[in-house]
């Protein structure tokens, strides 16, 4: 479904070239949820942005066997939608939820806007009375539900999730993760999930890429990750660190 080969992204900052992602290759099958894990600055979000066509890249990217460049047609964009980390920053503060959900439908000239918006809200577990509220009148979890509703309103087949629960409390995180797995089942979505949290990634993904300083360190199946069967020292370090603090007996 998605094939990435030799993907590289360079940024220019302060007269210097910075290689944010270098020669990363992987493929994601239809219906699969692929995880990308790494620490800050590892290039994990940049990969997602490159796939979505938000940053310039080199290398090859094919989606549904069609090569994709940075320029995307409206139809291309409809296939692939993004959910961002910060539910506070990703919704326009002066637009009601209804405005936010209506906009993609208007841009793509789709019919039956009213009904679609209504259905999209119900899909993510929001009530009809939330429809005409502003983002500041909703909780963080509700806002992330709106962001998910907006990404799904065009019925995409691919959902790109960039740290969708990092800004949320654990109890709300559980609700959003359950919502994502339920939606991906009912719409047969192909997903790429980027997160720094190994527990979250293992919960949702079948295969996981470990990133470090722009390089893909290792590709692991979820079972190998769970049983700490990693080959690379860095991956093992990451797994150990995620299990909490260990006191060295002195």
């Amino acid at each position, binding site marked *: 479904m998605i094939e990435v080969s030799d993907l590289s992204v360079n940024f220019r900052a302060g007269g210097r070239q910075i290689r944010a992602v270098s020669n990363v290759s992987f493929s994601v099958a239809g219906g699969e949820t692929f995880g990308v894990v790494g*620490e*800050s600055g590892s290039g994990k979000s940049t990969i997602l942005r490159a796939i979505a066509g938000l940053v310039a890249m080199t290398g090859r990217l094919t989606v549904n066997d069609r090569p994709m460049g940075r320029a995307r047609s409206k139809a291309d964009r409809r296939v692939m939608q993004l959910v961002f980390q910060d539910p506070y920053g990703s919704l326009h503060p002066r637009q009601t939820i209804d405005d936010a959900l209506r906009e993609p439908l208007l841009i793509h000239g789709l019919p039956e806007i009213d009904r679609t918006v209504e259905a999209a809200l119900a899909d993510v577990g929001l009530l009809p009375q939330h429809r005409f509220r502003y983002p500041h009148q909703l909780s*963080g979890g509700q806002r992330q539900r709106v962001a998910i509703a907006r990404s799904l309103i065009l019925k995409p087949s691919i959902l790109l999730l960039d740290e969708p629960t990092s800004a949320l*409390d*654990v*109890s709300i*995180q*559980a*609700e959003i*993760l*359950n919502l994502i*797995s339920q939606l991906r089942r009912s719409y047969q979505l192909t997903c790429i999930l980027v997160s*720094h*949290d*190994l*527990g*979250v990634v*293992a*919960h949702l993904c079948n295969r996981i890429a470990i990133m470090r300083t722009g390089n893909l360190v290792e590709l692991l199946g979820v079972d190998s*990750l*769970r*049983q*700490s069967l990693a080959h690379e020292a860095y991956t093992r*370090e*990451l*797994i150990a*660190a*995620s*299990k*909490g*603090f*260990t*006191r*060295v007996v002195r």
Partner: protein
Amino acid sequence: MSDSPLLEVEDLNVTFPGRGGATRAVRNASFSLGRERLGIVGESGSGKSTTGRALLGLIPPPGLVSAKRLQLSGQDLSSLTDADWQRLRGRRISMVMQDPKYSLNPVLKVGRQIEETYRLHHRASQGEARRRSLAMLEAVKIRDPDLVYHFYAHQLSGGMGQRVMIAMMLIAEPDLLIADEPTSALDVTVQNEVLRILDDLVTDRGMGLIFISHNLTIVSSFCDRVLVMYGGRIVEECKASELSAARHPYTRALMKAVPVLDRPVSELAVVIRDPEWLR
């Protein structure tokens, strides 16, 4: 560990009056602390940070703090004047905040900032303060203290910034350190490094530590004892190692809501809130 507790809190209340009635951010919280690591966990709005701030006299007006007892090594904290607080903060109690980016002065070299804390509480010459400051940077495992001394906040990485903050908070050798989400802005591998430094310093200097966090995994593995807060109340107090055997339904639900690497589940448990918990 010791006979008389370092800190004693009984019926601590923090209230913010407002147009729609008062918001009671902390309600009747009681706990004591020895020379140990006490974790406070809870979700946003549970009152955990407010509790920490109240202990430092940092609740801004019109917020009201009241307590039946609020004592640090036998000294009553509830009747302190502003000047008393100034002397106490840094010297007896310090606080490490979440994000070094916002807690450090952007236009002052970090070495100078560490010195400043020391000179506020000790009569020391410039040279002496500088020597102490460098030693403290070394104590928090900064590889090249002479170089980092001259850095400004923006030149530090997250992990380094947090270590500088810890250095600044510990240089006046307080008895009690309050760390409010000290590692939440850091990567997991760096997080454990910073925790180790904090752990060693607390153990070596025999300080009490209040560790405020939303991360159950860290708190249960790092602290000795844990308080769980919900809606401004302490709903559970237990040994950190026994958090998995917690009794309160909220704590148990929270533990189950965390996706854990070596415990696969098909669906995560959701916290169903019982209004009874707020009684």
